[in-house]
């Protein structure tokens, strides 16, 4: 299932298969939820995977097999349209799952008991029977709702070119500063197309941090700071950036666009086909400069 759920303009992926397939595309995102395996720590987190805006846009523009689904709209619609029949089917599904779980438990129990018996323990026959009535029940909270029968129809509804275009426009318009966001995006896609894996870099003192491969395996090489159109570059900040990066064996990079993005002109250019428009922007060159700190005299 190649859907990218967004909720209030944030890309949140709950489906582990989708997370896997995105990783193959070099989109790593950021796991932000509690990991059921170990719930009291922050080093290893679970779903949802939160995507950067740039990641979300990159996947939608470059990988048409992925489509955006606005969760808030979808679930509202879903609840409103659920019939008694649907609920019945859901109930059946839940029951089936529950029974399956009991069945596995029963088998485990019986296997254990017969094991004990063969080992010579005396166990009365009454204790050999697994009492489903009294046994604790496991209640599962699933990651996604993909098992709900009506979801498919909703997905199909959103997976239409014209709906996707509208959703993409909405997403772009939700940005506080579209021209900056697009600059960020173009820098992102420039780096991605050069093979870098990219994560957010605020805590390193940049907008992005770039890795030569999957961050699970490699240390990052670049700390990237975008320079927006008309922005002055303060020398002191360059000194600082160079020092910062060199101290952790990285390179400080400032990146910007050679062509000015005309925000006011967007309205008309974006409208018909935002994907193509963004692709056309990507053709314009991104300039990058790297800085290294060479010590002070």
């Amino acid at each position: 299932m190649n859907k990218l759920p967004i909720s209030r303009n944030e890309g949140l992926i709950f489906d582990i298969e989708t997370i896997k397939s995105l990783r193959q595309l070099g989109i790593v995102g950021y796991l932000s939820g509690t990991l059921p395996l170990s719930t009291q720590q922050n080093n290893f987190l679970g779903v949802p995977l939160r995507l950067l805006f740039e990641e979300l846009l990159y996947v939608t523009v470059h990988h048409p097999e992925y489509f955006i689904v606005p969760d808030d709209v979808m679930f509202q619609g879903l609840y409103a349209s659920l019939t008694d029949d649907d609920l019945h089917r859901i109930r059946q599904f839940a029951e089936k799952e529950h029974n399956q779980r009991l069945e596995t438990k029963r088998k485990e129990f019986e296997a254990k008991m017969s094991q004990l018996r063969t080992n010579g323990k005396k166990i009365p026959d009454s204790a050999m029977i697994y009492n489903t009535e009294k046994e604790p029940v496991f209640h599962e909270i699933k990651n996604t709702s993909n098992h709900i029968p009506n979801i498919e129809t909703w997905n199909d509804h959103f997976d239409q070119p014209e709906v996707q275009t509208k959703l993409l426009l909405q997403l772009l318009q939700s940005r506080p500063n579209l021209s900056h966001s697009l600059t960020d995006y173009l820098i992102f896609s420039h780096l991605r197309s050069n093979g870098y894996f990219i994560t957010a870099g605020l805590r390193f003192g940049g907008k992005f941090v770039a890795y030569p491969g999957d961050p699970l395996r490699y240390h990052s090489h670049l700390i990237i700071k975008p320079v927006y159109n008309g922005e002055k570059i303060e020398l002191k900040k360059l000194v600082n950036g160079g020092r910062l990066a060199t101290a952790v064996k990285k390179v400080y990079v400032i990146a910007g666009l050679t062509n000015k993005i005309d925000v006011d002109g967007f309205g008309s250019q974006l409208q018909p086909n935002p994907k193509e428009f963004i692709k056309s922007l990507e053709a314009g060159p991104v300039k990058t400069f790297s800085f290294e700190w060479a010590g002070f005299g």
Partner: protein
Amino acid sequence: MLDGRNQRCAILLDEEDREMRKPYLDSCLHSDASQPTTMPESDYDASDDEIQDWSVVLSLADQKVPKRGEKDYEPLEGDYDSRNLLEAQGAMFQALEAKKRGFTCNPGQELRYTIRFNRRNQSFYILNAQGKFLDSMGKTDGNQKTWFTKFEALYLIERGTCRITYGEDNSYTLSLEECYTVMLTEDGDIDKYNVYSHLKRNGYIVLEYTLLSTEKETRNFYKDTNIHSVYDKPLFRYTFTNYSTIFYNLQLDIYNRDNVSSAPISQLHICFNVWKPQVNFQKKIPPLPDFQVSVINIENYNFPTLNDISHLLSQANTTLTTSRNPVSNLKFGNENVIIATVDHGLFNFIKLSRTDFHSHGLIWDDKWLKRKHRRAKNLQFSNVYWKSWVNSIRDSLRLLTLRWDSVEA
């Protein structure tokens, strides 16, 4: 200075996770000698750029995972790399799926763990709630209903302690995806929730912000607020017997805050009161919070202006750390607030504390120049009256020279 590793060993605090504590191998988590460089400061953490070795967390689930080599600087040719990468990714995905989210309870008890949810007014409660989590979460009313904020409710669901159901017969349990969607309905909710759950997972007690007491604890700086500058002519036209007096003379009157508007306007506000992990926490009459956290999305807000900070601090009231060392007190500051800066789910915590170099007094100490006078040392009386006499004479001497000098000039 605390060692990060020891801290991480103590990550698992909750009762329910106690059995997991043992295999949590701190050593394989963070000992990495070949880490390119780590910043040597306490505020800067190796965890910023460390290996995420998911096999560590997998060992909690008794999954056998091969121990991987350490993180590399760059990709290499050959299958050494691809094998390691596959293993690393495999461990991660395995860990994500290793355990299902949910809770186990006796038949018929599940309603004690089922959160009732009113979508219209976004309220959440459990009837006859039970569980250890109630120690620091929820508010119970007279009707046996325990009410939760949306962050509390979502956190309980995400860690698999509770659920929300749809329909009359509770047969349909909402998925996590649905919960996020229907519960976090306002702009910025997701950011606040991420911060909330991050703190909770660290073991902190987190409640919605309320001003608990208006009586503020302030640190006692030693005060010397007199400003007695001369400035009519260059200072060397006067005669001084110590440098402290000269420094006092140099000070400008720029600390007097009377004419600064008293009601700063700002869009920022504090979101959470936070307490360090503790037992016997009284959630009904909580003590002063240890920290207060404001959540700011860095795409929408500038770095706080003076108004913003003053506004936040006027709402803040936390316990203060004090040190006997006066310079440390300058560094800890007085009132403070913690700002969680969020950038698409990744966040940094920043602590801003007001400090005051002026009321701290001079850092210069005339004693630094004291040379030993052997002769004077041998002639000591111990009489308080003498001492005050001496001082007054010395002072008048100094004044005399001052006057004399000005007449001369």
